[in-house]
C-alpha cells in the first residue's frame, strides 16, 4: 500500500470514529452543558443508573435487535434457499420484488405499517415493532444469503449425494457450513437494521414502552444531559462486542475458505 493510500485510509477512520470518541468522552465530562475544559467524572453514569426510562429503553432496543436478527435470519435464509435453489412459477418476480422495500423510504414504510397494524388489530407496542423490524430486515438477509448461495457451487451438494448423502444430510454437512459466513453477516445486518431503527419504532411505540433511539429523540426535545452519552456509549460497546463476537464465530465456518 502506498503511503498516500495509508494516509487516506487513516483520514477515513478518523472521520468515522472521531465524533463517536467525542460523544463517548462527553459522557465522562462533569459539565451538564458539554462545556470544556474536560473534567473527568462518572457522575452521568451514576445518574443513568437511577434513570429507569433510559435503561429500559436500552434493554428494549437490545432485545428487539437480537430477536429481529434471529427471526429475520431464519426466515430470510429459508426464503433465499427457495429463491436460489428451487425452481417454481413466479420465482423471477419474487426475486425482483425483494429489492424495492430496501429503497422505499422508512417514513413511508412506517406510515404504511402504522395504518396496516391499526386495521388488523395488531396495534402498537414492542410486538408491533418486532414485526416491523423483522419485515424490514428480511430483504437484507435474503440478499446477503442469496449472494452467498450464488458463489457456492451446486456441484458440492451433488458430490455429497454421489457419496451417499441424502439431500438433507448434504445440506447440513456441506451447504450450511459453507453458507455460515453469509448467514452470520446477514444476522449482523438484521441486528444493525433493528438497533438503528428510529422512524418505524417511533411510529409504532407507545409512551413508556419504546426503544433507545426514540427515547433519546424525545429527551433531546425536552432538554437533556450527558446521561444520553452514557447510555449511548454503553450500547455502543455492547453492540461492538456482539459484532466482534459474531465475526470470530463466523471464521471457523470459513469466510477465508472460499476463493
Amino acid at each position: 500500500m502506498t503511503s498516500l493510500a495509508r494516509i487516506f485510509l487513516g483520514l477515513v477512520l478518523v472521520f468515522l470514529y472521531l465524533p463517536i470518541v467525542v460523544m463517548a468522552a462527553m459522557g465522562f465530562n462533569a459539565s451538564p452543558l458539554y462545556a470544556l475544559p474536560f473534567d473527568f467524572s462518572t457522575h452521568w453514569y451514576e445518574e443513568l443508573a437511577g434513570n429507569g426510562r433510559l435503561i429500559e429503553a436500552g434493554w428494549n432496543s437490545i432485545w428487539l435487535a437480537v430477536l429481529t436478527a434471529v427471526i429475520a435470519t431464519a426466515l430470510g435464509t429459508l426464503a433465499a434457499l427457495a429463491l436460489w435453489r428451487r425452481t417454481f412459477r413466479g420465482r423471477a418476480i419474487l426475486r425482483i420484488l425483494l429489492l424495492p422495500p430496501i429503497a422505499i423510504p422508512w417514513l413511508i414504510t412506517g406510515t404504511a405499517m402504522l395504518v396496516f397494524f391499526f386495521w388488523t388489530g395488531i396495534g402498537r407496542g414492542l410486538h408491533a415493532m418486532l414485526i416491523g423490524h423483522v419485515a424490514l430486515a428480511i430483504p437484507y438477509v435474503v440478499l446477503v444469503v442469496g449472494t452467498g448461495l450464488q458463489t457456492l457451487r451446486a456441484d458440492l451438494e451433488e458430490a455429497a449425494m454421489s457419496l451417499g448423502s441424502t439431500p438433507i444430510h448434504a445440506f447440513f454437512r456441506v451447504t450450511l457450513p459453507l453458507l455460515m459466513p453469509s448467514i452470520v453477516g446477514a444476522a449482523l445486518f438484521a441486528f444493525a437494521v433493528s438497533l438503528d431503527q428510529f422512524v418505524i419504532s417511533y411510529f409504532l411505540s407507545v409512551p413508556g414502552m419504546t426503544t433507545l433511539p426514540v427515547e433519546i429523540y424525545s429527551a433531546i426535545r425536552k432538554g437533556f444531559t450527558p446521561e444520553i452519552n452514557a447510555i449511548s456509549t454503553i450500547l455502543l460497546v455492547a453492540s461492538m462486542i456482539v459484532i466482534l463476537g459474531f465475526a470470530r464465530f463466523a471464521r471457523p465456518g470459513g469466510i477465508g475458505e472460499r476463493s
Partner: protein
Amino acid sequence: MSGVDVTGVAKSYGATRVLTDITQSFESGTFTSLLGPSGSGKTTLLRIVAGFVAPDEGSVRIAGADVTGVPVYARNIGMVFQSYALFPHMSVAANVGFGLGRRGIRGKAARAQVEEALEMVRLPGFGARHPKQLSGGQQQRVALARAIVIRPDVLLLDEPLSALDRRLRQEMQVELLRIQRESGLTTIFVTHDQEEALTLSDKVAILDRGRIVQMGRPAEVYERPRTKFAAEFLGDANFLTGIVRAGRVEIAGAAIATEDRLPPDGATVTLAVRPEKIAIRPADAAGSGALENSLPATVASVIYTGTALTYMLRSGDLSLKVFAQNSDGSPLAEGSAVVLSWAARHSVSVEG
C-alpha cells in the same frame, strides 16, 4: 457379468431432444469413453447413469440391479466432477472419508482405507491438508481417491482433465489408466478430446446429437467408422462420394475399390479414406502396383511441420488431404502432378 446397462433411454428438456433411444452395455471392469462434441448429450447420459437426472424413457441397470427409480445417494456410484467439487471446509482425509462415513465405516478402519486410497493416487500423508493448499492436479487426485475409496459399482468422470494444462493432463491420463487397471472399476469417462478417448479407453462410444452412433475398441472405431460424423470426429477423413458400378465406386473418373459390401449398381455411396492411409508419388514415378486404388491429382498446397507433411490436393473437382512422412526431406512442389494410391480395405463405406 454386466457393469452398467442402459436400455432405451431418452431425455428431452422441453422441446429439445437431448438423448434418443440410447441402448448400451458398459461391461464390468472396462474403461469406456463417451466421446462427442459439446452439446451432444454426454453429460446428460452420465448424469442419468449417476441418478442426478431421471430419463423420460428407458431403464438403467447397475451391477445387475435396476436402479432407474433409485436416487443418486442410494446407488453405489463414484463420481469425479470437472471442477473437482472438493469440500473446501474439510481436510483431504475428511473429503476422502466422507463416503465411508455414509456407509457406516468410521474410526480406524476408515482411516486405513483413506490412507490406502491416498496412496493409490500417490498422495500419501496428505490427509491433514486442506483442498485449497493443493495444486489443481493434486485436487484432481483427491477427487479421484474420494470416488474410488467407496468401491463404487461404477466410476463416472465428466471431463475431469479438461481444467488441467497439457503436461499435467497427459500425466493424469497415465495415472487414471493405472488406477483404473489396479482398481478394476467399471469406468465411464466423458470427453470431447478424441486423442484422450483413443489413448485411455477399452471402448469408445461416439455420441452425435443424442445418439450413440458407434461403439467399439479404439482401433475398430478409428479404422472402420460407420458414419461420416464418426470418421470426421475421430481424426481426419477424405470423403469420396460416387455411384456404384460393377462392384466399384466411380469417383472423379476412377473406379475405386473397397472391401465393404456395396449397394446395387446406380446407388450413391460415400467412402471415407484416412489421410495417412494414402501414398503419394510423382506422376512420372513407377508405382508399386500393390495398392488397389490409384487416383491422379495435383498438389494444391503443402504444410510443412518438420516430421510430417500435409498435402492438400485436387483431383478433378475433388479436394483431398494426405499425411506423409517427411522421409526424403524434399516435399513435392505445389502444382506438380501426382498419383495417390491406397488399399481397397482403407476405403470405408460410411453413412451420410
